[in-house]
């Protein structure tokens, strides 16, 4: 019984996904917007994911450590507070992205029902990935998550979208293969597939084949780098994000990235958490620090040069991965505080990004989708509510207090300072100034420019679901910024031991 209780969010997602798939298969949808697939399926699937998030919250309050049988599936699935926290984050991201899709798909003539089971199953993969305590389940979760997203990326079936999906699929499989190969080498070297076992074997040392270990570790790091889109493994991200429908982009940049970081934290802390791997001289922190610096600086610089808001947001999501990496680097020195900073950042980033992309969705209607800066010219006058929402979430992403994004940044850089990586904090803070430039540029177009006569103008759509997603994200962003105390304590308690 305890086992079922501990796995309740996972089971709910699985059953809900199956149920929706069957419904989708047997129901007949018409072209009319009121009776289309989205009108009937979007809300149930969002509710399913929100319910999973609420169940995870319940588990949190009960504390999985006190549930008998929660350990029954270890080491394959580890149900601890870390897992529960990421279940909440990814399910929240998934639910909000689904709400966006509920407005977006019918508006842009993409109203096909398979979207919803796909996104639920992909979220299921995210949760499994966060819970995975064994290389096998880790790979299982990774593929469950990714396959759904590959399909969703090409959902538009235009050549652009298919190209994006293909690129994402090829590079994603490549990364997964690297990860798998790294795992195989680790198994060969240590004889274990569970992360704890590998970690213990590595700590004990003895006669381990050192070159194979280094190679395995490098492969795993590259795989993680691909999944969280850290520079220089980010090449797929802008194209895939831009080609994907906007709600899918929101989902990818939020839930998939969070799950990637969950995997990274769990692998790095449980398997490579020994001080000899975590030291600045011989361990992984300098490599990750280099990745973080490259990611922050390059992604922010490139994002400033984009002409499309969607592409800019894609680069900005890469840049945010850089800030999160700063927190990951500090994990070995300041422990749970740094992990907590990563978790908190991901939560704040999730709601801010969903909000910004949701506002972008809200601004465009059929045939007049808002993607480039020019499309947004004059929106502040034509559609003040959407422009206000966009500015609000962009300011949160830029790190302007007192919004959630600012607190996330503060917390991550505080961890870096606490770990003694002052230069990392300074580089991060300076690159966030570059970041502010391109976020402000959106506001420039919305409020301070009028569209050129004859130029295509984005026309706002009407959708209760998009607005409700924005309202939920807005409340969470404000809550994280004004009263971060409770969520910070949750994040600290959620750190992997």
């Amino acid at each position: 019984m305890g086992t079922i209780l501990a796995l309740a969010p996972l089971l709910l997602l699985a059953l809900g996904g199956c149920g929706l798939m069957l419904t989708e298969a047997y129901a007949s949808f018409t072209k009319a917007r009121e009776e289309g697939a989205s009108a009937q399926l979007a809300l149930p699937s969002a509710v399913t994911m929100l319910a999973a998030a609420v169940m995870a919250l319940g588990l949190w309050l009960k504390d999985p450590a006190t549930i008998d049988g929660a350990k029954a599936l270890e080491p394959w699935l580890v149900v601890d507070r870390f897992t529960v926290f990421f279940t909440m984050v990814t399910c929240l991201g998934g639910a909000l992205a689904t709400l966006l899709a509920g407005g977006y798909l019918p508006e842009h003539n993409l109203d096909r029902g398979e979207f919803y089971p796909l996104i639920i199953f992909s979220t299921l993969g995210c949760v499994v990935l966060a819970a995975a305590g064994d290389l096998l389940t880790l790979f299982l979760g990774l593929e469950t998550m990714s396959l759904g997203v590959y399909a969703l990326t090409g959902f538009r079936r235009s050549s652009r979208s298919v190209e994006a999906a293909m690129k994402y699929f090829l590079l994603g499989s490549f990364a997964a293969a690297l990860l798998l190969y790294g795992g195989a080498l680790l198994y060969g070297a240590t004889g274990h597939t569970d992360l704890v076992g590998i970690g213990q074997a590595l700590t004990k040392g003895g006669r381990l084949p050192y070159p194979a270990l280094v190679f395995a570790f490098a492969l795993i790091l590259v795989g993680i780098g691909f999944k969280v889109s850290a520079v220089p493994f980010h090449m797929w991200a802008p194209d895939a994000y831009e080609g994907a429908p906007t709600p899918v982009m929101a989902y990818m940049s939020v839930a998939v990235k969070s799950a990637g970081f969950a995997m990274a934290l769990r692998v790095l802390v449980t398997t490579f958490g020994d001080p000899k791997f975590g030291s600045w001289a011989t361990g992984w922190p300098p490599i990750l620090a280099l990745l973080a610096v490259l990611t922050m600086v390059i992604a922010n610089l490139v994002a400033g040069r984009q002409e499309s808001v969607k592409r800019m947001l894609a680069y900005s999501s890469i840049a945010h991965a850089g800030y999160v990496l700063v927190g990951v680097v500090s994990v070995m020195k300041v422990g749970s505080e740094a992990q907590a900073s990563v978790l908190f950042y991901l939560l704040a980033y999730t709601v801010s990004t969903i909000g910004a992309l949701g506002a972008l969705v809200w601004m465009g209607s059929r045939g007049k989708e808002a993607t480039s800066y020019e499309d947004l010219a004059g929106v502040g006058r034509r559609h003040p509510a959407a422009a206000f929402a966009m500015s609000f979430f962009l300011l949160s992403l830029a790190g302007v207090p007192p919004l959630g994004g600012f607190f996330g940044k503060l917390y991550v850089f505080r961890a870096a300072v606490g770990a003694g990586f002052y230069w990392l904090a300074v580089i991060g803070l300076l690159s966030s100034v570059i970041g502010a430039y391109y976020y402000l540029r959106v506001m420039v177009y919305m409020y301070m420019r009028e569209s050129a006569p004859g130029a295509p103008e984005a026309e706002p759509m009407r959708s209760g679901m998009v607005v409700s997603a924005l309202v939920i994200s807005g409340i969470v962003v404000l809550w994280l910024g004004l009263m971060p105390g409770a969520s910070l304590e949750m994040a600290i308690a959620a750190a992997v031991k």
Partner: protein
Amino acid sequence: MPSSLFDLWPVLGVGAIGALIPTKKDWKLRAGLGLSAALLVLFMLKVWDLPVTPEGGAKEWPNLLSALIAIPLLGAGFLLFLPRQSPELLKRFTLGVLALDLLLSLTLLSVPMTKGWHFQSIHEWVPSLGIRYHVAVDGISVWLVLLTTFVTPIAVFASFGSIKTRIKELCFSYLLMQGAMLCSFVALDLFLFYVAFELMLVPMYVMIGIWGGAEKIKASLKFFLYTMFGSVLMLAALLYLVWQYTRITGAPSFDLLALSRVMLPQKVQTVCFVAFALAFFIKVPMFPVHTWLPDAHVQAPTGGSVILAAIMLKVGTYGYLRFAMGLFPWAAGTMSANLAGVAVLGGVLYGALCAWKQDDVKKLVAYSSVAHLGYVMLGLFSATPSAISGSILQMVNHGVSTGALFMLVGVIYDRRHTRQVDEFGGLAKVMPVFATLWLIVTFASIGVPGTNGFVGEFMIIMGTYASPRLGRFAGIDTVLAAFGVILGAVYMLSVTQKMMFGPLSNPKNKRLSDVNTREGLALAPLVVLIFVIGFFPSLFTDRMKDAVAAFDVRYRDSFELAKMHGNEPPELIEIQDPSFLQGAPPLGKAAVEAARAAAGEGAK
């Protein structure tokens, strides 16, 4: 308080005079001027009557400052739900909120400003990070709070005359800005200060960007990014300081009072000081990081310029005094001789020379700000009690007189849509009231005795000469600063001469109408205040002297301690002044245990 009607005769008399002054038969102008004059006298009498020394029993309402901050912020939130179609409602609502704020802020003067913090209010905010909501005023910040609540409604009222589009965004920006600026002046928690410091950028950015001139986008981005660049460096230094405090005491805190106890090694202190000071120098702005200011000012609408010059720049000077000097006295003390040189050469002299060469009168006023704030910074670098008092007074003065100058520039810009000096000439013939007001404000700006500018600059220059911090440069700094006063007269009077007097050569100027009711009402309080400060400066300096003296003692003590400390690792120091530490967070467990262990050793 006046007890009978008889006691009110000066109020009524001045009110009547105010109502009779205008030549035009406009009852609104008469009523408004009479009312503002009467209120001002009432206010003066209240201030005058109040004993400066404590007599006990003075009640302080602890939520007053929170209310001052919350009223505009809640007003801004509420404004979002008002209909965009009725601009009159939005305008009245905004002015009502700001007027309420102003009236409420006057009660700050109801208590004697003795040493220590007043109207202190502390609430836990994020306990796990040591962040608290901690606000209080002392004799230094109270004037800046009053300046804010006083100037903003005037600027808003004036700007409604010239801005006709997108009133809702305008009102929202003003209210948000007001809340953030007030918060930054009363925050004693550095996190809270940082939040306010960043938050006030957004509405100003929007204001320049939407209602600005031709180059508005460039100017607004430059303004935002420049300031943010400085402030993130400050954030990095702040995080370092908090981390050191946490390491020593075992409990984190962002509180100014707590962090003042940390004595950093001299080298580290210098690095942190540079980060803090850079953030504030950009905000002030001080040469050579002043280049955003002329752009921002020239492009901003009149209301924005007034608030930017009168209040927002003061956040920089105030922040330098309170935080950079308060937290890093060693670094501030050792670097001040060099910095004073920069302030005199780059600020006072170079700013004045730049102002002299401007063709655009708004740009001229903007550069004159650089020069005037050079004086303020010089006073802070000198750090003698007289110089610091002068600086604080000069912050208020600059707010009043430069605010008035920007409004006057706005008056002619609204009529002619140009600000080029050559376009004008002989305006005194067609706009006599305007020319009179311009002349008065010009005198205040160049520091003619009897106006406010004289008092502030005099105190600063006196203080500079006596400053031990400036070493052997004190004399030359003084001479150059005094020379700057002459330069100030040169550029202000030459532009006055070109614009107001001489032949009325340009035919476009022949039919200009004089100052209208709205403009007159907005300018009147500022002009009156120029003389009030000019003739009765002790009203202001008496209330700040305790706080300034306490600051001076603390600054010197910490400097001496730092000298002995050298490059030793960070440790806690004792602050002798208990009134300063009133409300400081308790020390963490580790520090208490260490103290107990030390005491135990002593007993053995």
